[in-house]
């Protein structure tokens, strides 16, 4: 599929410049410029000399790339398998999709019609192999071409060698020996060709003819299950989208039941009329199948996106895919039915909170066998499948605070004796006088875990004059090179 932005007839001749070998050359041009006789590859200076009136713009490869990607997103409506091809092409694998659009020819016509409506000058071709489709899109005379299966050889034979996606060097080498058309290669003995011009030549030929299988690499992973709705009248309001989600989720349920699976990750794709595609992903903590539950989760995500989801002129297609599915465990209801229901509610709430506040919003404590307080217990995202370390047998030596600062904060402390508890300390610019102190509890660094272990810490529980209780520690020992420093690490009730 070729791409070339065309402009309305009353636009001035426009050429896009690109720097090649230290010279500005024409990379692309519009119809008006073409009519003047300009050609891609021509020097900008020459073109300007010939026609001073032309407008020159610099090429922006990044923007081109973005446009191509958004176009690929848009093409998602035809097939989930869309791949980028170079700077200006797209591969669509429509195996098993064409009947949805009334056959191959109708589908090809529809794609061309809709892209032309969007202002693209496109060339499209349909064939049994990616290589053949590429060749006939770029080198056939008609703008749309459906190459029937079995006619690859006839179609390819009169085409120039460039139709084979060859390297520049190989192509010029072949042309030098007088081989200008693909037909000349098809009948030629293969071994000498491969020896002289490399294996790639033969591979490309075989790929185009369908002797060797060629897979395109789709941009997005393919969902095992999806359901979609094409809408005659575009929708824009959240309520309408929500209603559709419920319908789509109901459509998916029988398939999930047949496969014995539930959704672990849901993908909602909203196709806007003007080609922009919004994708919304929601993860679940247990396999889901119930349409209402699925819908509820997506509602939360939609509600959270409310400002940023721009419906523009409306969405004309909505697709709900199950990106990741997992075996659905049939729950055996036991006598204590209440607990399982509570647990289900619990995980659903966690999913909904995650859907609205972000993946890292719901945290659970994870315990580890360690003496270092920050390693002993930390918070991890509950969405991740982690083996929750159960209670450890480690005896709790001293009292532990109920709040722990993420990062211990340095304090200036003064102590009566070097090794003793602090008498007063300054934290966040306020001075605290210590009324009582307990400690030290010495926690040694874990040298077996890290390359560069920290320093020995002496922890003190202190209470200030107002009754606040803190967990302070002194890092390092006296007599070492660096003087010990004091930190505040946690708070007691």
């Amino acid at each position: 599929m070729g791409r070339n932005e065309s402009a309305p007839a009353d636009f001035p001749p426009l050429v896009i410049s690109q720097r090649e070998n230290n010279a500005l050359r024409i990379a692309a041009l519009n119809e008006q410029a073409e009519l003047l006789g300009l050609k891609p590859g021509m020097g900008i200076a020459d073109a300007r000399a010939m026609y001073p009136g032309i407008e020159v713009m610099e090429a922006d490869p990044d923007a081109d790339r973005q446009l191509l990607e958004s176009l690929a997103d848009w093409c998602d409506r035809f097939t989930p398998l869309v791949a980028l091809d170079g700077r200006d092409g797209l591969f669509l694998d429509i195996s098993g999709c064409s009947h949805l659009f009334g056959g191959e020819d109708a589908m090809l016509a529809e794609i061309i019609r809709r892209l032309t409506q969007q202002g693209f000058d496109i060339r499209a071709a349909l064939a049994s192999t990616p290589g053949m489709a590429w060749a006939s899109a770029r080198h056939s005379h008609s703008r749309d071409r459906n190459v029937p299966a079995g006619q690859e050889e006839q179609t390819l034979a009169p085409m120039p060698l460039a139709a084979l996606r060859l390297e520049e060097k190989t192509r010029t080498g072949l042309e030098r020996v007088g081989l200008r058309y693909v037909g000349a290669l098809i009948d030629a003995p293969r071994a000498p060709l491969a020896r002289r011009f490399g294996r790639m030549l033969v591979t490309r030929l075989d790929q185009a003819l369908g002797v060797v299988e060629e897979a395109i690499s789709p941009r997005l992973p393919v969902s095992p299950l999806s359901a979609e709705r094409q809408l005659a009248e575009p929708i824009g309001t959240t309520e309408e989208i929500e209603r559709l989600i419920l319908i789509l989720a109901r459509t998916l349920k029988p398939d999930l039941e047949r496969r014995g699976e539930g959704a672990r990750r849901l993908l909602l794709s909203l196709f806007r009329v003007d080609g922009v595609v919004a994708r919304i992903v929601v993860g679940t903590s247990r396999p889901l199948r119930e349409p209402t539950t699925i819908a509820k989760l997506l509602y939360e995500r939609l509600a959270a996106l409310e400002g940023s989801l721009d419906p523009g002129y409306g969405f004309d297609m909505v697709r709900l895919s199950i990106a990741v599915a997992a075996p659905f465990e049939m729950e055996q209801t036991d006598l204590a039915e209440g607990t399982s229901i509570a647990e289900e509610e619990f995980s659903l709430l966690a999913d909904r909170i995650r859907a609205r506040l972000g993946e890292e919003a719901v945290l659970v404590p994870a315990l580890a066998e360690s003496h270092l307080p920050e390693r002993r217990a930390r918070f991890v995202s509950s969405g991740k499948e982690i083996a929750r370390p159960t209670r450890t047998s480690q005896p709790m030596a001293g009292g532990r605070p109920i709040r722990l600062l993420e990062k211990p904060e340095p304090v200036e402390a003064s102590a009566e004796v070097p090794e003793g508890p602090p008498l007063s300390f300054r934290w966040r610019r306020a001075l605290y006088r210590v009324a009582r102190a307990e400690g030290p509890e010495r926690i040694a660094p874990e040298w077996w875990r890290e390359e560069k272990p920290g320093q020995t810490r002496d922890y003190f529980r202190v209470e200030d004059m107002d009754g606040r209780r803190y967990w302070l520690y002194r890092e390092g020992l006296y007599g070492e090179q660096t003087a010990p420093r004091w930190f505040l690490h946690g708070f007691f009730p």
Partner: protein
Amino acid sequence: MARMAMAKEQIFALRRQIAKIEGSLPERFAVPEAASGCEAALRRYGRPEKAPAAGVPLSETGAPHLDAALGNGILQTALTEITGRETRDSGAVSGFALALAALVSRSGEGRETARPVLWIGLADMLSEGGFPYAPGLEQFFGLAPEKLLLVRANRLEDGLWAAEEAARLGSFSATILELRGNPAKLDLTATRRLHLRAREAGRALLLVRHSAEPVPTAAPTRLLVSPAASPLRETLAGPLPRSIGPPAFAVTLSKSRTGRNGSFVLDWNPHDFAFQERWPSRERQLVRKNGRAQDSGDLVAASFNGSDSAPAPWGGLAHGQERKRAS
């Protein structure tokens, strides 16, 4: 003698008038009935409370005077507001909230089937005051790590939404919503929604506000919490000098269902999961000196900072509703 009695009468009449102007209930100023043995402590709390109204689940705190002032315990199915003045008091304030959560989750159901506790913290408070630390929570409040779920919300709206959803659900024994300061969004409407959700689901919702001034909210109970010096560690040979014992809190009940207020110094017993009240004489020495929870010895607790903190704006409407429900 007679003149003194008359003077007293006059004083009470004046107080009743003040109460009327302030829009609070006159009972709190009523002449206390002499109770057996603890008159000194009771005089501030008014009449001994009647038997608990049927149908309102309550959790006793273990401190008799606080229970009496609360109307026989903390409401299990309501929004309870716990306010601390400064961020650095976060240990005491969140500790008190957790103690209430422990009381609520322990009453009624057995320890094994205890439901989890949901802690919704706003991100700025979690980074300023520290994350909850699971080993400490288990040590002090018996809250097992697998029974704790923390939600970190970046915006107040998110936190309120999560709290509402959680309170509606009823699969948590208690939900703690923790935030800092006096955000304008946390107004009467927002707290009223929270309270109604908690009441419908029959679960406790604790609104913990750090570094905040008491402002009108729809919570039927408000407790101002500040740290208090802990009692000494008890050993076989008596109290160990200069040691730090169990957690202690200076609590001021500034709004309650019964309309009574008061200040208390409570020690938390981490083994029995109950509060213990300290004797007033000791209280006077131990409570911090800035007068916040100090026993002034007056018949009526002196108001501080100019006024009694935030009387209910609708003249005790929340209180009236509770009553209606109870009857």
